[in-house]
């Protein structure tokens, strides 16, 4: 797929440039002539949506930084200054805070799409692992960003999460003190979190470049899960994928705008409008919604160290997915059993998210434990067994055949 460029420079300047730095050829082969499978559905537009969200977060973030003060005595009020006195500051701030949530909604859909259609399987393992790295970086960035308004949830969320590291035997306390830059979360913590929150999005952008590069080497997967066999199975990226991605993006922006303009604080927490106070612990310390499933896994396990290990393992296990699921058939379309288990897995993740928002007591803990067990069982027991024993449906001979067969099913 990454063969030599078919780009033909038209004017003299572009010919001169192309002979020296073939950047136009690179853009042409990556975003214009790049062959995309013709059967991609709208779940494939989330890659483009995610690039848009990353750009939107970086741009709104850069402008917010022009008005924000990362100091424990001034951070909260500087955010309020943005909300009140900066022209359209309320819009920038709500775009950025809701943008984080939208970024995660899009990435979760993108990841579940990859799982459903087996996009992590050979030859796309590295592509998938780069994606997991981006996701991890996103989680770190989101967490760091949430501390910046220096409200009660910022402060106590930062305290709880950094305390994970105190579970490390022997050196735990030392590591936490080092992370905080003191003996509790305080001004040094806020300033380093701010610095890292500004840094990480650019690291994400770098890994996104690798992710797209890997994608363009192996080509996109598709709903049929079979490789394109020639021109008949593909369409050029522009205009076909471009216009479809653009439509998907506008629909996503509608969803985004609905939250920004009508429910700007819906995805946040009221306690974060109370300035950080080390002397008062909120009744329930709850992380942002996108961490809730992992928070439920953490609290399902009574031992702190094991809980933290389970938390990191629940994300780390994704790296091994290409080898845990060794079925030769990629798409769930042709894997009837896998498809059922996929939807159960989605329900389990949503259930864990619900439980993560609840206090860790009574029935909630037991439910969290059952779902945590199932979460790991999905990867460690169900997928390996399915790869071995599942009777898959016959695959179509080509993508174009699967496209033509599709209407007959309805």
């Amino acid at each position, binding site marked *: 797929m990454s063969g030599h460029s078919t780009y033909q420079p038209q004017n003299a300047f572009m010919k001169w440039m192309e002979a020296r730095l073939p950047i136009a050829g690179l853009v042409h082969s990556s975003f214009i002539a790049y062959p995309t499978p*013709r059967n991609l559905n709208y779940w494939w537009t989330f890659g483009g949506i995610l690039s848009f969200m990353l750009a939107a977060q970086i741009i709104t973030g850069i402008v917010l930084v022009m008005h924000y003060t990362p100091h424990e005595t001034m951070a909260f*009020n500087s955010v*309020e200054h943005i*909300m*009140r006195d900066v022209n359209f500051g*309320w*819009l920038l701030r*709500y775009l950025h805070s809701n943008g984080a949530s939208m970024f995660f909604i899009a990435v979760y859909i993108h990841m579940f799409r990859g799982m459903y259609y087996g996009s992590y399987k050979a030859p796309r393992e590295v592509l998938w692992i780069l994606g997991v790295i981006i996701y991890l970086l996103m989680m770190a960035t989101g967490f760091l960003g949430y501390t910046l308004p220096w409200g009660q949830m910022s402060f106590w969320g930062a305290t709880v999460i950094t305390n994970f590291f105190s579970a490390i035997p022997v050196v735990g306390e030392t590591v936490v003190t080092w992370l905080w830059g003191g003996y509790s979360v305080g001004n040094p913590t806020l300033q380093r979190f701010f610095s890292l929150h500004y840094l990480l999005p650019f690291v994400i952008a770098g890994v996104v470049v690798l992710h797209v590069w890997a994608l363009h080497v192996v080509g996109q997967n598709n709903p049929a899960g079979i490789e394109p066999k020639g021109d*008949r199975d593909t*369409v050029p990226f522009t*205009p*076909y994928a471009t*216009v*479809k991605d*653009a*439509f998907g993006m*506008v*629909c996503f*922006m*509608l969803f985004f*705008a*609905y939250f*920004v*303009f*009508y*429910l*700007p*604080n*819906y995805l946040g927490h*009221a*306690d974060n*409008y*109370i300035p950080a106070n080390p002397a008062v612990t909120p*009744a329930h310390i709850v992380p942002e919604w996108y961490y809730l499933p992992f928070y439920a896994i953490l609290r399902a396990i009574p031992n702190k160290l094991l809980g933290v290990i389970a938390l990191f393992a629940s994300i780390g296990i994704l790296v091994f997915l290409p080898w845990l699921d060794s079925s030769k058939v990629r798409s769930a379309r042709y894997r009837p059993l896998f*498809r*059922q288990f996929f*939807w*159960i897995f989605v*329900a389990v993740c*949503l*259930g864990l998210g*619900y*439980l993560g928002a*609840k206090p860790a007591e*009574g*029935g*909630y803990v037991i*439910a969290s434990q059952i779902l945590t067990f199932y979460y790991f069982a999905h990867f460690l027991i169900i997928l390996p067994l399915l790869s071995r024993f599942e009777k898959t449906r016959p695959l179509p001979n080509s993508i*174009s*055949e699967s*496209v*033509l067969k599709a*209407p*007959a099913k309805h």
Partner: protein
Amino acid sequence: MTMQRSLLAFALMIGLAAPALAAEQGELPPKQKWSFAGPFGKYDRGQLQRGFKVYREVCQACHSLSLLSFRNLAEPGGPGFTVPQAAAIAAEYKVQDGPNDAGEMFERAGRLADRFPKPFPNDNAARAANNGALPPDLSVIAKARTYERGGFWFLLDLVTQYVEQGPDYIVAVLTGYADAPKDFKVPEGNHYNKFFPGHAIGMPNPLSDGQVTYDDGAPQTAQQYAKDVTGFLMWAAEPHLEARKRLGMQVMIFLLVLAGLMYFTKKKVWAAVKGRPEMLEGKPSATKH
């Protein structure tokens, strides 16, 4: 597909049953009708002006409003005071300024650019005057308070746009004072409140009928005062709410039209390959669809 559906139904059932596991909740704050709710919401100028009066005559004695400036009172989307009116209000306050050329702090009349002065010089002074309890700053209180209904109401709120939990809670607390039940022991210096978490609140019942004189004919009841001052506090917490909802409608309409255009563009572009299956197979037998 049916299997998938039954699984979803099962998951939903478990979800709906889950709240039953939670501890029984007390009485929930009653929902109020707010002019600023919903996609076309706007503040009620009369309510904001009355609420401001209640704040000045009742709350201000203990509660600061430190993020607000007098100029905000005359800004669009607010209580609708004119600039001279706001300046006159500012002039009624004493503001500390300085140091002057002699190096001394001095007091002067407030100006539009000044923030609302705090009632106490510092938090400890506020605590000392209030039986050890710190009266919270009210600048963003309407967004900093909420209440939980449990269950899956939060999903319905997405559609109904019910995001006024904060204001509803504040009205409920302001009007929620009652005699404590026999088995409830109110700690010394506290007061029983039906809606305050833990029911023991430091603030004595602040509002009573007829306490503040309204000159626009609105009922002079504690209930009305509570609602008006809460409306005012919502504006204080979200002064650009009207601009946000107005711009929101414009953005939504623009995006809807753009989405429509994109959809038809996409359809037209794809018609070249979708409508002609022979382009896919190149075999006559496949063209029957």
